[in-house]
């Protein structure tokens, strides 16, 4: 892995990475009204949704990416499975460049699609309301030609059973299910093709806590059972704690801190990570008042110079306002912060 210039955050004994992001970036060009172009000589606006993101996920491991809305985490998830085209860098699944493979021969593209699947946030929008649940779950199997149609009902029943749904549910429509059950259907569909790489984009943020617990436990069980490499996207640090092995914290398109879960929660390094942790409401500790958090995420059309977090950072100095910190390794952790680097923190 290191021969690609990607810093490794895994222990040496780890099996080889299944999934890698190498300097991944996505820039969207915004439309500028012609009056502005004419009168103000305004160029097209650019949003750097994802910038220079690198990571690796080994078989059987889960990397969680957290951040506030607009930090680029969902764009990154879509880049990893080829739903978006990167404007820089590349995504790799099992030594195959995702973008190049999907654009290449149909047979290879189809084979790669079988190996990576995604679960979306909104179980109301991600299931076709006019299809029976049985057809929704069978579709990837038949589309991939993995089983003859005659065997589909048996396989679908087994898949539904593995996510805790009943065999009779195949003849029902998505609207007859609650949010949590719909997310189970999405999970059954995602694991139907026995993928090696699973991307979960906020799979529980539309669910109630008691249902969230059911779905998270199910995801963790399936991920362990099938030794999936999993990319888990969430805005909620506490949820991440129950599913992840490693955690990356994103802010305005970049990873600011990437660390093994235990390290991140025990000793968060980046001021933004600390802020996010301090902002988590907690039931059980009555001593910890939520730390007041200053400001909001800046406009991505005009990100601050230097470190993008400096306007909200209590430790920012002149260097932070001018020079963007690089993601530097320190032990098992990678942090992009001048204050950490200079031992001011």
């Amino acid at each position: 892995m290191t021969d690609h210039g990607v810093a490794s955050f895994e222990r040496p004994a780890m099996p080889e990475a299944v999934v890698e992001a190498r300097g991944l970036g996505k820039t969207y060009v915004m439309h500028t009204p012609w009056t502005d172009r004419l009168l103000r000589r305004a160029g097209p606006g650019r949003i750097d949704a994802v910038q220079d993101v690198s990571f690796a996920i080994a078989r059987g491991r889960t990397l969680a990416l957290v951040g506030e809305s607009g930090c680029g985490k969902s764009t990154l998830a879509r880049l990893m499975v080829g739903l978006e085209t990167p404007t820089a860098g590349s995504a790799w699944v099992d030594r195959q460049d995702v973008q190049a493979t999907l654009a290449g021969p149909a047979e290879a593209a189809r084979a790669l699609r079988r190996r990576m699947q995604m679960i979306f946030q909104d179980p109301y929008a991600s299931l076709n309301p006019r299809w029976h649940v049985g057809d929704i779950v069978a579709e990837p199997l038949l589309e991939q030609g993995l089983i003859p149609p005659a065997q589909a009902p048996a396989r679908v029943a087994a898949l539904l059973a593995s996510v805790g749904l009943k065999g009779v549910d195949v003849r029902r429509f998505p609207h007859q299910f609650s949010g949590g059950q719909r997310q189970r259907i999405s999970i059954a569909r995602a694991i139907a093709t026995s993928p090696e790489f699973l991307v979960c984009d906020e799979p529980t943020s539309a669910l109630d806590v008691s249902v969230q617990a059911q779905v998270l436990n199910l995801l963790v069980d399936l991920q362990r059972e099938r030794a999936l490499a999993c990319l888990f996207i969430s805005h909620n640090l506490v949820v991440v704690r129950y599913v992840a092995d490693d955690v990356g914290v994103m802010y305005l398109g970049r990873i600011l801190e990437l660390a093994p879960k235990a390290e991140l929660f025990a000793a968060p390094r980046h001021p933004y990570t600390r802020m996010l942790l301090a902002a988590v409401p907690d039931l059980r500790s009555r001593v910890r008042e939520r730390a007041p958090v200053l400001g909001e995420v800046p406009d991505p059309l005009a990100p601050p110079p230097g470190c993008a977090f400096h306007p909200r950072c209590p430790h920012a100095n002149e260097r932070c306002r001018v020079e963007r910190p690089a993601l530097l390794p320190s032990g098992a952790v990678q942090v992009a912060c001048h204050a950490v680097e200079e031992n001011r923190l």
Partner: protein
Amino acid sequence: MSGPLLEVRDLCVEFPTRHGTLRALDGVSFDIAPGEILGVVGESGAGKSLTGAAIIGLLEPPGRVCGGQILLEGRRIDDLPGEAMRRIRGKQIGAVFQDPLTALNPLYTIGRQLTETLRTHLPLGAAQARERAIDLLRQAGLPAPEARLAQYPHEFSGGQRQRVVIALALAAEPKLVIADEPTTALDVAVQAQIIRLLRGVTQAHGASVMLITHDMGVIAETCDRVAVMYAGRIVEIGPVREVIEHPAHPYTAGLMASVPSLDDAAGGRLAQIEGALPRLDEIPSGCAFHPRCPKASPRCSDERPELALVRRTRAACWWPIVEGPAS
């Protein structure tokens, strides 16, 4: 002042449908003292938002109050004609909803919306109303309020919009603010700011708050008391610390255990309640929670329990948890 500010007695709400009448709220009773913050929690569909909507008289037809009373300062408000209720809304009861974008009119400036509300309810001149609008925005923590009066809702971020909505809700100095999921649409970091603001501003104005949310964390750090709802009924109500740390109802206990926490051992599993909230047309007999309850007995499916004192909270359960968890 003596006596509660708001009393809700045996409130029932039903929805007539083609397949029969569905009872969405069934005998909900609670009160809110002056200056008190009462949290209302429960899963989606438990009836929390409906309770709030019934109190401010904004039930969506065909939903209707089919029983019980709602009293504000001892006067019934559930049977008022539309015009009288409209005057109470805004003046005596303010509302903050989940989505700040739909609560604001996108075609009017923030200043116009604030001054209009102020002048509808208070005898103020244009200049006075403007002064007061600026003051309200400042209290809501918006920087440069004078400049922002001329701006439209789309020029504000999500967190700032919710600040404007809170300013709007408090404009006419209401005695009660009903906040329905005020932080759900916001990022965690901004949530903390809005909760702090809501608590601070309502305290400063001496207003009571009914805070409806599914987020136990928000309840824990904001409320004095909390009511837990399940399938259209309150199953437990009591002081917030007591309910969180020593829940008496098995449903409350399950709900608390399923909340992810930063404190317990890493890598553990989340506790989960098996099954799902029943649909309104399939509410089980007796205690509605009995099919999912680990302590259920035959009595639970036959007889419906009413709220009764268990230590310091009141729970509707035949077999309440009497022992506190080993702390």
